[in-house]
């Protein structure tokens, strides 16, 4: 069977996902376009060799609507033979897009494909695409729908994580991200964003707050108390009746940041790499997605990781580096607890709590980050995974070659 290799991985810096964010002036189409152009230029690619571009996007409406992937390929000046489509696996869209690209290569449908994603959260706010899950009573009742923040707080309550646990995790994420930037650990992947005149606009992650301390976080009020009182805490308890009440520990400082950004990963067969003179950086060992209980919603990574390890024929001890999207502190705390993973082996360069989570792009970003880190630290194997809305997990295992 054909195997899929990663030849390159790039990402834009992440801009604050608000009107005062530096990337707010840049269209989401430009973010995707510049990523595709970056992959082409860095690898001196004749894009006619690329069969497909798959981009994740979580709010695919308005200027992110109507198949951004195909349109971005056209806009980037790719060969017109390059197909494209947009997928939505919520927060794991970017990783799922890479997995789909790899699957196409493995199945023989494609020789080379790009998987990635984009999200301009400042321009197309979360929830812009509506959706039945929250607002159609038929679905909301049947699924015991609660918003994600409540789910994160259920995890904290059920598995015994305190506000201090979550805040300490967040402080460490900030510290690691700051150190990584200082030591230029992201340089290999970062693609500064330019304006239409070609002038640089943003070259670093601007959401970070390296000065964060336990004291500064302590001043923040929990974010989901009001939602909880509205009825969602009670729905959570109907699903988890062993809990007397929901302990609300999450706030803006220990949850992922709202940011703009895009990323792409170039995937291909061994043969296409040889033909084009490209050096593979890693092999994709296995991929998996799984559904999990939708009310607690964010515990999927545990099950996705177990599933992907099984498919790879590997065990936990075979993985040297772990990367789990920091959607909320409790998500990572629970993952470490469930799989008995040491904090020094996971998210070693910080994560979305410090740098932000551009929904559709994050999966491709963290895969690139962990690949860079494998190379920097001389390690071989890594597992990247994300928790996902509506209760899912997606995971990928890569191995350096």
């Amino acid at each position: 069977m054909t195997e899929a290799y990663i030849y390159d991985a790039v990402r834009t810096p992440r801009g604050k996902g608000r009107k005062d964010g530096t990337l707010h002036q840049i269209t989401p189409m430009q973010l995707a376009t510049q990523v595709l152009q970056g992959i082409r230029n860095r690898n001196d690619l004749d894009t006619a060799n690329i069969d497909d571009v798959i981009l994740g996007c979580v709010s695919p409406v308005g200027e992110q609507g109507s198949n951004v992937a195909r349109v971005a390929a056209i806009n980037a000046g790719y060969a017109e033979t390059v197909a494209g489509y947009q997928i939505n696996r919520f927060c794991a869209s970017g990783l799922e897009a890479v997995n789909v690209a790899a699957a196409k290569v493995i199945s023989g449908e494609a020789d080379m494909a790009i998987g990635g994603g984009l999200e301009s959260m400042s321009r197309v706010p979360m929830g812009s695409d509506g959706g039945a899950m929250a607002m159609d009573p038929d679905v909301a009742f049947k699924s015991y729908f609660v918003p994600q923040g409540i789910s994160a707080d259920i995890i904290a309550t059920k598995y015994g994580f305190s506000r201090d646990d979550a805040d300490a995790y967040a402080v460490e994420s900030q510290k690691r991200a700051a150190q990584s930037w200082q030591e230029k650990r992201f340089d290999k992947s970062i693609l500064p964003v330019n304006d239409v005149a070609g002038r640089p606009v943003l070259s670093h992650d601007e959401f970070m707050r390296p000065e964060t301390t336990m004291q500064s976080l302590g001043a923040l009020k929990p974010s989901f108390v009001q939602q909880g009182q509205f009825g969602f805490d009670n729905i959570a308890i109907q699903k988890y009746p062993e809990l007397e009440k929901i302990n609300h520990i999450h706030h803006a400082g220990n949850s992922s940041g709202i940011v703009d950004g895009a990323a792409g990963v170039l995937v291909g067969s061994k043969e296409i790499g040889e033909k084009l003179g490209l050096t593979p950086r890693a092999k994709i060992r296995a991929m998996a997605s799984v559904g999990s209980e939708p009310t607690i919603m964010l515990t999927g990574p545990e099950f996705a990781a177990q599933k992907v390890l099984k498919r790879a024929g590997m065990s936990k001890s075979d993985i040297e580096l772990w990367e789990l999207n920091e959607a909320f502190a409790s998500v990572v705390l629970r993952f470490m607890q469930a799989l008995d993973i040491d904090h020094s082996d996971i998210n070693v360069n910080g994560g979305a709590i410090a740098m932000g989570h551009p929904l559709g792009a994050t999966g491709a970003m963290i895969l690139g980050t962990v690949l860079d880190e494998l190379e920097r630290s001389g390690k071989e194997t890594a597992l990247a995974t994300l928790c996902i809305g509506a209760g899912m997990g997606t995971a990928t295992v890569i191995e350096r070659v």
Partner: protein
Amino acid sequence: MTETIKFEVDSDGIALLTIDLPNQSMNVYNQALIRDTETVIDRVLGDDAIIGAVWTSGKSIGFLAGADLNMLGGDGATTDGEDPAFVMNRIFRKMETGGKDRKLLAKEGTKPFAAAVNGLALGGGLELVLASHYRVCADNPKIQLGLPECQVGVLPGAGGTQRLPRIIGQQAALQAITTGRPFKPAEALGLGIIQEVVPLGDVVAKAKAWVKATPSVTALWDKKGFKFPGGAGAMHPGSAMTMMGASAMAQKQTQHNYPAIQAVLSCIYEGGCLDMDNAIRVESAYFSKLLQDPTARNMIRSLFINKQAVEKGALRPEGIEKKKVKRLGMLGAGLMGAGIAYVSAKVGIEVVLFDISKEAAEKGKDYSRNLNQKAVSRGKLPETKSNAMLDLITPTDSYADLADCDLIIEAVFEDPAIKKSVTEQTEAVIGKDIVFSSNTSTMPISGLAENFTRPHQFIGIHFFSPVDKMPLVEIIMGEKTDDETLALALDYVSQIRKTPIVVNDSRGFFTSRTFGTYVQEGYAMVMEGVKPALVENVGKMAGMPVGPLAVGDEVAIDLSHKVAKATKAALGNAYVSSPAEGFVEKMMELERYGRKNGKGSYQYNEDGTKEIWKGLGDHFVVADVQPSADEVRSRLLTRQAVEAARCFEEGVLLTASSGDVGAIFGIGFPPYTGGPFSYIDTVGVAEFVIESDRLADAYGERFRPPQLLRDMAEKGETFYTAGNPTGRVAA
């Protein structure tokens, strides 16, 4: 030509359609009125000499009170094989559009129909009004305009879930329909539900004037460019937030037990994406779905038909003259006595409120003073009325003051010696044919009657706490109680506007006995190592008002202890010990009596909040393996239902329906079930027996089903059959 609607055309060519059901005091939608409604609409639309029509009612007390629930309750005959859930929608829509399609209607409009609302319009009554193009209402603030269908487990199925949100917006409509809260005319006018509020005598004239001035009309929502006030539809951010919030609140309030609430939310959400022709089809589909669900049938039977039947005197023995209690002798001015004095004085009964000291009696009267003060300060009760009511209550410590009373209710301490002494001293001063009743909740009535020389005039009148809020009164027949005594007790209950049930004597009667099993099962589970939070949450999820530990704290654990001790003493060897006893003993030892001393299964904080006492886990170790929520739920409901079935088998209960009404209104048995007997029927008698046996094998003989249920299961019998809402009668 139409027996339920009078049809008169005036010189202007306006048809006056007067709804007036023969031989009924109130108009309701039954098959005849539905049929006649279509007939007169067809006639108005088909006769060129008629320019429009006005609906009104021939009843002085109301316009139209909604559907005849007996019709919905089960034997809903269909008309010509048409989907019965869609008939009214189709007829009202024909009135609204003149039977024209969208394009033609937009071009020509249709003949105007106006409603002249001269009294309350509820349910289908208000839906007829909403489907009329113009709506005039009399200015009487007592007129109620509402859609109360959800309260009996169905939804407004004649366009109410569609027209109301198009007039007042989705959020306001959600609130009005899910709560069933009616609007007053002035409020309805402000919201656009009504276009004119005028004196009663002018309603028809004003409606006719509008028809005369309106050659053709198109409903608001049939006009091009119509928008919901506040927005609607899947891509409208405000509507999305409204629906998300409404779903959350509704799930919190219903605990997923009331399908009608979700159906209303769905009708409003889905209808918000549609034109009226499609929207009413969606509404009818949800309406059909509810009618197929046993919840609606159970709720209609117990909450409406049977509740109303007992309130209207179904339990009263025939051939006995109706009496009115004028002066009540209330023995004991504690919480119960004070409450009974309040509800009695409130309806104009003089109350002699007796207690051991004048201070104690005055304290009992303070209860009424405080409630009145609150009502006065909120503007709900005029000061003069309050004073007049308080003047009716005479606190005293002298038995002599009881002399002229025409009914005595005793609510002193649950102590046999005290009861005996009070009864004897009272009998000495009262008239020789005056009925003596006891509000005891634990001591058999026949035993207490021995303290009275006229046991045929001794009866139990058992109230629930708080008396002013709890709707039920359980009347207990002693062995020798006669029918005249029962009739008087029922007349008194009717006077104070409570809902009665009548049961035979037994320790704990029906309600306390059944209720006790709920609390005890909760304690038993905690003893076994079930997490207290799981027990409490599942109690609420099962539809009980509060968890068993919480309610046990309210009742007071030392009281449970005392009752158990007294029962044990009275029954001797026949006493069956409860698995909850260990729990109660331990709590007694720890001096945790409940809310009364600030510590029970819960810890009561100074800020008024409470939480499950952390120390419970030290005394009742939480097991590693916890039961599923379904298992806990089955234990809590099955245990109560088994006890109710025993009461029925033993003849404590006389009918299934009195058990259902009593359990719902007395002890908060989940209303969606229709009560324990409806619950057994819905589970299936045979399945219920299997489940009870399973629980008995797993947790103890208290779950073992009585022989009655085994026999019924074998014969394929149920507690209720079609057309007989009273249900099975005890053998």
